[in-house]
């Protein structure tokens, strides 16, 4: 259903309240839906910045992601995982030395065919027209089915109230309440303002490429066309939209 139409329907639903006082609710045109956002990570560039956490910090600060010390209750949107685990490499010794034992960035793949969206019983998570796999934290019932469904471990559940664990709190973005699931939203709030994701902007080495796959002239398309890239667990058919340029 297009956003315009949904907006109209909802208008009709609230007509009684609105009509009572004559307040008319304005309805702006929706964001263009002709894009397909994707991300490409230049692994080598990233690895050059050994120990760099700029993207992680930028993201977690921008989105009020708590720093929970208890590993069991951790909430993270973007973080680093050993290369071999990320790509399920059986024998680390056969990996090129540049990658062996190193960590790569992982976060939500914003899959084209996201299992998490398929399983959600309330449509609290869904794939937007521009490819962003979004979560409506207001609707999430905390069943954690999506967490079980995600083959990448990208989703976090708020086992505890996250607020005491916030280092910095920004009022630009809400925190979450306990009992809901969250993950990377591809900075959709920034995209709406025409800004790139916070991590991309924060990366000092330009290792993260963000762009529209439908735009043949976009840098990401050119890069992916020019260089070899891999994706996580492509065999599962989820069609991740985060590409690792080797």
């Amino acid at each position: 259903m297009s956003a315009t139409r949904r907006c109209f329907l909802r208008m009709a639903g609230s007509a009684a309240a609105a009509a009572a006082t004559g307040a008319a609710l304005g309805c702006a045109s929706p964001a263009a839906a002709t894009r397909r956002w994707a991300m490409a990570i230049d692994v080598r560039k990233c690895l050059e910045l050994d120990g760099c956490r700029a993207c992680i910090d930028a993201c977690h600060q921008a989105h009020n992601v708590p720093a929970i010390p208890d590993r069991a209750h951790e909430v993270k949107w973007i973080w680093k995982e050993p290369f071999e685990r990320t790509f399920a490499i059986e024998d680390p010794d056969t990996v090129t030395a540049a990658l062996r034992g190193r960590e790569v960035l992982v976060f939500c793949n914003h899959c084209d065919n996201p299992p998490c969206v398929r399983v959600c019983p309330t449509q609290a998570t869904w794939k937007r027209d521009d490819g962003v796999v979004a979560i409506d934290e207001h609707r999430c019932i905390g069943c954690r089915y999506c967490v079980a469904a995600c083959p990448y471990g990208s989703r976090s559940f708020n086992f505890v109230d996250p607020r005491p664990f916030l280092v910095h709190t920004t009022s630009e973005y809400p925190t979450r309440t306990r009992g809901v699931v969250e993950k990377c939203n591809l900075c959709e709030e920034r995209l709406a303002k025409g800004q790139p994701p916070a991590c991309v902007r924060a990366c000092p080495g330009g290792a993260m490429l963000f762009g529209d796959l439908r735009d043949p002239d976009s840098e990401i398309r050119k890069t992916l066309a020019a260089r070899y890239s891999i994706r996580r667990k492509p065999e599962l058919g989820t069609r991740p939209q985060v590409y690792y340029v080797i």
Partner: protein
Amino acid sequence: MLEKALAGGRRYWAWIAGLAAVACAGAWCYALQLQTGLGMTGLSRDVTWGLYIAQFTFFVGVAASAVMVVLPYYLHDYKVFGRVTILGEFLAITSVVMCGLFIFVDMGQPSRVLNVLRYPTPWSMMFWDMVALGGYLILNVVITRVSLEAERNDTAPPRWIRPVIVLSIPWAISIHTVTAFLYNGLPGRSFWLTAILAPRFLASAFAAGPALLILLCLAARRWWSLRIADEAIRKIALIVAYAMAVHVFFVLLEVFTVFYSQVPEHVDHFRYLYAGLDGHTALVPWMWTSACLAVVALVLLIVPSTRTSEPTLAGACVAVFVSLWIDKGLGLVVGGFVPSPLGAVTDYVPTWPEMMITAGVWALGAIMVTGFFKVTAEVRAGER
């Protein structure tokens, strides 16, 4: 009829009061969980479902198993089960209610659960599970009410109830199948990603549920002189024997597939459960207990003399129940989460409040089943 459950002797009320106390303790712990969140449980980022969902899964099986007494009676006119079908259905009602409660206590935002109804999502298996379980509950409430009333008045039940009962048979199969689909439709969880999951669920359900039913019947016979023919119990025992054998067979099929193919993603889960992985062995003793009990139960159930003698049968039923409870109520759910998609091995140990909440739901179920069986016993005692 219901008021029959409200009149009883001192021992009856002591038993109910004891259960109520456990239920209250559970409710108290739940109030605590409501305030502090699921962080109070042993669940973690890697093992996001634990005891609650495992109990849910197990009791869906118990609920579905009513079909094992309903089907022979209504489709094959197997008269001996005439007096136990209603008990099976009561057990099913209780189990479904317990399932609902287990789901409820597992919610991160329980106050929003009605969103499932407000935004029905046909592509989510959880939505269908709700439909299946809700429908099964309604079916069984209607069936037991009408049947027991007819029994009490010694009249023939109305004719429209028969198609309803027949409908409840495939419905029972469906609830556990859909529950299996909850798990085996997930691409990243190789432990569950196997088509045999649904049959395996059904086999274990048809062993564990009737085993529980036998135990309850034996108890009701002793305490309330509820008349249940030996033959009926022997036939249910036979069902348990076959179902248990099939279950073990299915597990072995899995073991072969996994270990012969040696696909690491598949092997790791089994290794974690039965041998431990990366030094994590929390579930190993449990799983071997389950396996041993399964073997013991199978032997006791296959040998005719031990199957027909009451004490050994009771023992076998306890063994079946405990074995499958461990297998499904612990191993299946936790085993699917460990190792995680990123290869992390995280042990899951339920916390005390979590176990208390679980015990509370069990206690509520026990109260329900006690009440239902008492009502049935009293209605039948009225016949004299």
